[in-house]
């Protein structure tokens, strides 16, 4: 890995986004509007909003970065720029980490906006520090970016790439504890939810919601999300082939 090339890649990805203000607006505003909508939906039951809102803070960065990365890498593959880059002295890690850095920066802004809105605008009642929320949101971005990069290797077209969203994200959404607490699920489903990384992102958010201090469970959740993010990132880098058929 080479720092100059990694930073150049991150800057290039950000410049691409810079020419696409509508995507930036969608990335930043849609999560805020969705939270606003959710607050309205739970108008009569603000405590239920606390728990679901906190979970969503863990889910938004993962889902948006998954979508953005899978399409961005797929475009890189189909436009021939990936082939060009890999025939040049660019390390696979330079590319992967460059993407993660660029989208991580976008995610910081997104998470900052969403967290700020929920705490000060929507009275989401957190016991813990907002900084801990930001930590999980960032690790979620890493995970989303890594998953997007990984699945884009198995998609031959944009059509296929967007279909990976229901295939990869929805099962995690259903099992992450957003709809029913994970420990009340049927044992097989609970076991499945125990191996899906989004469960830990959501658990982590709920730990911050309930506890003023950093709990042992929170540390475990953070480690699981970070670890699985790194693992999938390595797998994603391994799907980049310098030689193709």
């Amino acid at each position, binding site marked *: 890995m080479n720092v100059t*090339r990694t930073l*150049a890649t991150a800057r290039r990805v950000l410049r691409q986004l810079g020419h696409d203000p509508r995507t930036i607006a969608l990335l930043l505003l849609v999560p805020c509007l969705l939270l606003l909508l959710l607050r309205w939906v739970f108008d009569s039951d603000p405590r239920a909003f606390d728990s679901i809102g906190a979970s969503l803070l863990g889910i938004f960065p993962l889902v948006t970065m998954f979508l953005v990365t899978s399409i961005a890498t797929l475009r890189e593959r189909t*436009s021939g720029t990936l082939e060009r880059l890999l*025939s*040049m*002295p660019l390390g696979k890690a330079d590319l992967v980490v460059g993407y993660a850095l660029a989208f991580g920066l976008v995610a910081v802004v997104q998470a900052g906006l969403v967290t700020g809105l929920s705490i000060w605008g929507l009275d989401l009642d957190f016991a813990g520090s907002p900084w801990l929320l930001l930590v999980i949101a960032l690790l979620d971005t890493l995970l989303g970016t890594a998953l997007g990069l990984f699945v884009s290797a198995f998609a031959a077209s944009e059509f296929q790439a967007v279909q990976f969203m229901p295939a990869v994200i929805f099962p995690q959404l259903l099992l992450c504890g957003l709809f029913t607490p994970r420990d009340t699920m049927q044992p097989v489903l609970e076991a499945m939810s125990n191996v899906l990384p989004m469960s830990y992102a959501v658990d982590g958010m709920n730990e911050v919601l309930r506890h003023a201090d950093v709990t042992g469970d929170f540390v475990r959740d953070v480690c699981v999300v970070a670890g699985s993010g790194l693992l999938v990132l390595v797998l994603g880098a391994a799907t980049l082939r*310098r030689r193709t058929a």
Partner: protein
Amino acid sequence: MMNKTEGPAVRARGLTVVRGKRTVLDGLDFDVPRGQVTGLLGPSGCGKSTLMRAIAGTQAQVTGSLDVLGGPAGSASLRSRVGYCTQAPSVYDDLTVRQNLDYFAAVLRLRARGTVDRVLADVDLADHADSLAGNLSGGQRSRVSLATALLGAPELLVLDEPTVGLDPVLRRDLWDLFHRLARGTAGDGTGGTTLLISSHVMDEAERCDRLLLMRSGRVLADDTPAALHDRTGTGTVEAAFLRLVEAANDMEAPR
């Protein structure tokens, strides 16, 4: 140590490439001499792009031996010494021309200020440096792609139909540039570049120092344009090309 200045730029022996279930290149033997412009000609689908991908090190399933600039094709040390321009332009449509080149220059770790301006001037795109690549015409986009390959003055340039869709004036200017590069009088003035250029345009073929004529994954002829005229008793490369390809077709036709 790799032999840097002696021997051919590309040396292929028994070069075979399988794509899907097809044997696309079938036991090729040829050399590409250094410091010359070698043209790669052949009917559509004969394997020109596949051969170029093999030389650039992006083609999988390559067997036989293929040495580039003294080392095996695709080895890490060649990645900054070989410039490769794909047939379909590979540029970021959502970046400006200059941003595209800035990024690829950073990947090559070129720091010199003038590098990007020089290649922009070479492909006559200085006026469009700040246009989005996606808003350019087809020929302009392919010139951005070509400019990328010229960055860093590589020792070997592998160009896949770089002049397709360009007007006669631009094509003449680019071929002048290719010959200046081969003579070592263009770019940053370092020694002669070796160029391997595929084309379907026959008057361009006349301007090559050597021609490699392919048909269905094999080499039909490997000679200078003049020698091809003599061998086939024709006055143009176009006629020689037709004669050789038709003779090969007849040999294969069912009795």
